[in-house]
């Protein structure tokens, strides 16, 4: 089955963030917030998980947003409109829990993690919730989908580490303020592992602030995405073993043992670098920069 790329855009002007529309009618039909796909670009390729950031059931299209961090994402960024990906499997993972809450929901997207926030905000808003969104990144160029997020949020807060847009500092700064001055029913945080860890700590009730139920999206290293390999596993604080692909990817942030998980995610670092460098060298002659 051909999985054609229908659209490709660069997001911001950092050169590392891309948005792609893929023609996958069956997946589009079943996709919900929280679901992801696993793609393989070519015969030698890895299976890499990417969140379904938007879906259009009528036209059979799903949208992915990705950041170039290594070989596979760089290779993906080199694919163009009309090209076909070798494999796409999904929708994997569970749909997020949808409920109408009393108080507002805070949804936090860090960097490329902004994209998966969109369908979650959209579906939760459709269920009658009030959404406060916080978008964070290192700098202004890495923030995207401002309008899309605004369209599903009652309030949109932007923060950048360097202060080039919105509040200067980490996403936890506005979050701290929000939960100290008003009742929040739920926090959702999607972004770098370290950001999710900090958010979960802030809302744990141990920081002099009220405890707020918090979901994080665990982007662990995966292979099959169906519970078969255990590669995606993460420990909870009570030492139990969980599989992010079948239990998540959205997980109660207060049970996750982030310290162990942060270390687990480094286990292939040397190989990832080798693979990336090799590919970079190969591309050099095509490089326009």
């Amino acid at each position, binding site marked *: 089955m051909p999985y054609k790329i229908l659209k490709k855009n660069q997001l911001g002007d950092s050169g590392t963030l891309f948005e792609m529309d893929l023609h996958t009618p069956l*997946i589009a039909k*079943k996709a919900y917030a929280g679901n992801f796909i696993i793609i393989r670009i070519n015969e030698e390729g*890895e299976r890499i998980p990417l969140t379904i950031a938007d879906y259009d059931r009528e036209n059979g299209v799903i949208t992915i947003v990705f950041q170039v961090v290594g070989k596979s994402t760089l290779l993906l960024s080199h694919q163009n409109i009309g090209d076909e990906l070798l494999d796409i499997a*999904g*929708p994997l993972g569970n749909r997020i829990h949808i409920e109408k809450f009393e108080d507002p929901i805070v949804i936090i997207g860090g960097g490329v993690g902004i994209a998966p926030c969109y369908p979650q905000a959209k579906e939760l808003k459709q269920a009658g919730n009030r959404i406060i969104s916080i978008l964070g990144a290192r700098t202004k160029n890495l923030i995207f989908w401002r309008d899309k997020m605004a369209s599903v949020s009652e309030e949109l807060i932007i923060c950048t580490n360097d202060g080039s847009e919105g509040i200067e500092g980490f996403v936890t700064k506005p979050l701290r303020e929000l939960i100290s001055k008003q009742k929040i029913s739920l926090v959702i945080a999607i972004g770098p592992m370290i950001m999710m860890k900090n958010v979960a700590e802030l809302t744990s009730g141990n920081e002099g602030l009220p405890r707020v139920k918090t979901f994080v999206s665990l982007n662990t290293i995966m292979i099959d995405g169906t519970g078969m*390999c255990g590669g995606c596993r993460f*420990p909870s604080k009570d030492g139990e073993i969980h599989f992010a692909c079948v239990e998540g990817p959205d997980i109660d942030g207060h049970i996750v043992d982030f310290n162990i998980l942060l270390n687990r995610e480094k286990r292939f670092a040397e190989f990832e670098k080798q693979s990336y460098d090799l590919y970079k060298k190969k591309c050099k002659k095509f490089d326009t920069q």
Partner: protein
Amino acid sequence: MVKIPRQKMREQDPSERIHNFSEVALGFTKEMAEIEAQRCLQCGDPKCVNGCPVNIDIPNFIRLIKEGNLLEAIRSIKDYNILPAICGRVCPQEIQCEEACILSKRWEPVAIGSLERYVADWERRNQLKECPDCEAPNNIKVAVIGSGPAGLTCAADLARFGFDVTIFEAFHKGGGVLAYGIPEFRLPKEIVNDEIETLKMLGVKIKYNMIIGKILNIEDLKEMGFKAFFIGVGAGLPSMRKIPGMNLNGVLTANEFLTRTNLMKAYKFPEYDTPIKIGKIITVIGGGNVALDSARVALRLGAEKVIIVYRRTEVEMPARKEEYHHAVEEGIEFQFLANPTKFLGDDKGNVNRMEVIKMKLGEPDASGRPRPIPIENSEYIINCDTVIIAIGTNANPVLTKSIPDLKLTKWGYIEVDEMGKTNLESVFAGGDIVTGSATVISAMGAGRRAAKSINQYLRSKYL
């Protein structure tokens, strides 16, 4: 005749083969096959046939080899078993047909598995594969979920009954454990792919990347016109005991280790993108085929030392005997009667040692094997860079969860009658998702029985 010694397959030399992924056993030559075929006594009441889970007419195909009629020999096997090149390589013959062979009472049994393999390889090498006879197409659509040996066999038989069969496979490749579990040096993937091509010859369609229960469920398939369903999704979920240190880097499941190497070809990194990390000393926990395969893959990836830690003894090991001998020849070290109690790591969170406790054997347990009992205060340390956990698998709930009324056992396996029928009309199942981890041949047998009942069911209802 009994004085002729049992022929032994040629093999790659251990010192060479531990550096490559090419097949270890090289098969019989024509002469060897002919000599071995003469050893068969052609019993009037052949016990071997009963020992075979799919009752291949063993004396018949061996007689045909003896007569030099290999074409008829392969036809005769295929009447019972459509995957002989695979079964000849991976069946545990020593506890099936060959154990029942009358010669085994006083001498060595006929090398039935090697002969089966010989005929199948001959057919493939000479490209003599024939499209089996099929009944006229009846245009009734049947869905087969999973392309392991159970699904492949069921699909082939259904196609021969004239049905319009589509296999839905979760992965991007077919074959199930044959593709992602059993390594290249024991079962070349070329053979698995070849069998899948044969299915296509029969008109079977295969759709990859189709995780049923996610992208489509049974209800969707019904809407698409499928009238019956065979579930052969295997027992893919790795068992993981909660042992302290389990989350250290370097501790991984055999499924992850084998999938990375076999399916994703990590042994060809960086030509292929998927990496694998092993280090110098590897320990493997378990005593089955999965443990042995993991150990031997680790060796070929460049490990200096590989130690299998098993809580019972050599006698109780469920692995195929031939593979155990191969592993010993290759220098794999075995520590029997030992069980891990914890994994220990360095300051970077990488495993570097494991603590094991010595065991002794007690009374037989539910499995009929003696129960291993820990010996108090007998703990000792093994240094290691990687630990591979191969202590079994459980039912994968992804599909079964999507069929709420499907009757399951308390362990999550599908309940079926002896003909593979579930409690739901039009839904059949077989293979590891029914029995728990078993064998290729038992999965095939189940696929075959289910195909028969699906045929009966659909004929009585629609034809």
